[in-house]
């Protein structure tokens, strides 16, 4: 018993790790199961409210993709969702949780409204200028949180969130003030208080395909998703963001100042939300007018898109389309007599469903380890008898 090194060693006593393909398959199956589960619960809910779930899901699908011109609408909505998500992804990678996209988006839309209704010049030039100013406005608005964070240690989670409510007030002020953005046209069709309408020349070009039409905002957003993915993974800039996000001390040591790089990440994060707002306005949201309810939760939902996509820019494309489909699909629900709020529940269930597989995997691994230890004990106890 003094020297075990000479004792025979059983190499095959250890279970081999499961193969990569099998593991991938397990993930896919888990996701399918949990999404199916969410849909089943949704169906149950619909049934409980006294409606037919076949009809409801049919209406959702029709509204999102199948009915004439609907997938164009879905892509129109997906564009700002994706842009907001991209901004979130950049922030998260740099270790910053900017959750004020709703407000930054409004600032971007306001900048676009200003350029569109107050400045004169050739349409295309104004349009591009409006988009750029939208980015700057959204970025600068997030930048306020940046200054507060790096000058006074105010957590950006709180400051960005609270700035949203100030943004609502600013927009309210702008569209009720004559010299600013208020529509003073005596012939306007509705009594509602809005900004002046965007002139024809300063609207986003529209792509028409198979009876669908959508502004080029979606194309811009998808291109930007690829750009963001590339920049984060393959450029010095992205590396610096990621380094700052993973270990601020190493970053500081390596010459990446938190205030400059982090401030830049926050600016970009807000800039994407601002661009989303500008694209929504120039793409026809609220009838090309800035209103108090203009943002319609796109900022909050875009944040959710990024979280569900695991802060991955390319996965965000798919998730953004899914979320947009739920929004546009719910437009057709009224015909079935189901409360639109049901869609919010469905959406929440889907988000939860996408978060379940990682947790399940963790528990499974632990249980497997326990079961194996148990088996071992049983075998040894039998041997002992």
């Amino acid at each position, binding site marked *: 018993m003094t020297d*075990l090194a000479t004792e025979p060693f059983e190499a095959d006593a250890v279970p081999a790790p499961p193969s990569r393909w099998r593991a991938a398959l397990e993930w896919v199956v888990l996701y399918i199961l949990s999404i199916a589960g969410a849909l089943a619960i949704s169906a149950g809910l619909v049934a409980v409210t006294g409606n037919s779930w076949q009809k409801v899901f049919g209406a959702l699908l029709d509204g999102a993709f199948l009915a004439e011109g609907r997938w164009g609408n879905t892509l129109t909505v997906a564009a700002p969702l994706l842009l907001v998500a991209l901004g979130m992804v950049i922030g998260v990678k740099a270790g910053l949780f900017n959750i004020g996209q709703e407000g930054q988006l409004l600032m971007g839309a306001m900048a676009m409204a200003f350029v569109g209704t107050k400045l004169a010049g050739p349409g295309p030039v104004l349009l591009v200028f409006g988009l750029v100013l939208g980015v700057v406005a959204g970025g600068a608005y997030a930048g306020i949180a940046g200054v507060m964070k790096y000058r006074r240690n105010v957590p950006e989670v709180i400051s960005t969130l609270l700035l949203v409510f100030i943004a609502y007030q600013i927009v309210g002020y702008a569209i009720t003030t004559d010299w600013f953005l208020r529509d003073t046209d005596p012939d306007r069709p509705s009594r509602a208080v809005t900004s002046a309408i965007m002139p024809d020349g300063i609207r986003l070009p529209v792509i028409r395909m198979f009876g669908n039409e959508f502004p080029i905002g979606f194309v811009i957003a998808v291109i930007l998703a690829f750009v963001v993915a590339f920049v984060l993974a393959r450029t010095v800039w992205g590396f610096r963001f990621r380094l700052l996000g993973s270990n601020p001390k*190493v970053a500081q040591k390596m010459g990446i100042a938190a205030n400059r790089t982090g401030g830049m990440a926050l600016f970009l994060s807000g800039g994407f939300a601002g661009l989303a707002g500008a694209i929504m306005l120039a793409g026809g949201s609220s009838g090309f007018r800035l209103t108090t309810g203009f943002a319609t939760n796109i900022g909050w939902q875009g944040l959710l898109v990024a979280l569900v996509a695991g802060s991955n820019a390319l996965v965000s494309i798919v998730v953004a389309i899914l979320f947009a489909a739920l929004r546009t699909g719910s437009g057709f629900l009224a015909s079935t007599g189901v409360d639109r709020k049901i869609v919010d529940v469905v959406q929440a269930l889907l988000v939860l469903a996408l978060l379940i597989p990682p947790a399940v995997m963790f528990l499974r691994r632990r249980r497997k380890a326990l079961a194996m230890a148990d088996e071992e004990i049983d075998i040894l106890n039998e041997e002992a008898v």
Partner: protein
Amino acid sequence: MPEANSDFVLELHGMTKRYGDVLACDNVDLTLRRGEIHGILGENGAGKSTLMRMIIGLAMPDAGTMVLDGKRRRIVDPTQAAEHGIGMVHQSYSLVDALTVWENVELGQHGKLDPGATRELVVEVTERYGLDVDPDATVRDLTAGMRQRVEIVNCLCRQPRIVILDEPTAALTPSESRYLFEVLVEGVRKEGWAVALVSHKLDEVLQATDRISIMRDGRVVERVATVDADSASLARAMVGRPVTLRTTAAAAAVGAVTEETVASSGDGDAHEGGPPVLRITGASATAADGAVLLDGLSLDVYAGEIVGVAGVEGNGQAPLTRVLSSLIPLQAGKVTVNDQEVPSGRAGAMMNAGISVIPADRLDSGCVPQMTVAENLVMSVLGQVATHGVLQRNEITSRAQGLIDEFDIHTPSPDTTLAELSGGNQQRVVLANALSCDPKVLVATQPTRGLDVGAVEYVSGRLRAAADEGIAVLLMSTDLGEIAALADRILVIYRGSIIGEMARSEFDVDQIGLLIGGSAAESGVT
């Protein structure tokens, strides 16, 4: 397998644990007996800590059984381990800084909060074992040695029969270590504890244990009674090849500093003639809460020499390291490299001036575990692996592969996440990163803490080689053996300033021992 014996308190059979592709523990058998201290010796990544974690239920074995008092048991969490009388003193401190000693002990108790009883328990335990701990002291105010005592008190308050200590002396001075072992021997003799002492320090295992199991690559490769063991044979079994204990590096690890090794390399006057490469003058820094971190600290390091800074942990080594990593600014004083002043606290300024730092805690500011090995290896030289701001994958991979080969980093691929590597290999990545950007100054704080003999030998050799190439090396360590073996010149740090200096030829353990305790006046050395 082992015959039934009532002295066997805990038997492990065929314990196996796999993390990904790595077998951390491979079919390990181990027996702890009543009234005996069992040393578990092994390199970093040999599987010692994993084995202990399985015993107290922090890790789940893939295979294997535990027999407690003759009955097979499965332990799924530390609470259950405590119910079976197994207590562990952890490697890194697991105390809550803001709470007092008794409050920390209370955290581990069951049922209703009972401050009176817990305080009494702490007092009783400290008196019984002669552990001098004030139950009402706040943990934050305690020294490293005192915290370690609190950990032990915390463990003993649960009245364990089986005591597991994982590298308990890492942050202790020699006298504190001796004291700790006295307490252990006492408990073993009086109360019949079974003790497992995990360590990579040969001398401490030889001194304190009755029996030694040596682990390598997840297996127990040798078991010996301590009376039959000597440091050379233990080191050989640990590393798997003969180790020349005469080399300064290995001597540091073993703590066996002989006259011969001290005289063998370097001389204290290597820098005559040139100006210092690194000069720190009157450096002072204060923490946000007003605590003095550095107090007018001055030192010079010349090209091609290793300056050792000896001292007990918490006397300014960490703040000095942070200043030289650009992490905190100085309130007074300055740092110059080749007579150029380096602005303190400005991101990257120290690195750009040519100061590379290996921090005491690599996870703090040494590396990024979430990123890949390759990314960690190139992060200090990003500009060299990018064109027009775009990272060149091939360039990164080939550069990383070069460093992986040169520094013998064991990794499945350059694109493996750093967190998947063992501690010793992570440390090699940190070392490679620090040395690959052509530094003028290399600052190493506790570079071999927690490493095994082989890795210590390697890291020490690298530091020596760096100095021989003309780099100014500043080595901060609480391990006097390491300082004695490597440094050309020895400085003593105490309460944020340098209070003594001696050349290698004047090296005197007793005098340094006095100095690191702050006895500058009595020792008469300045």
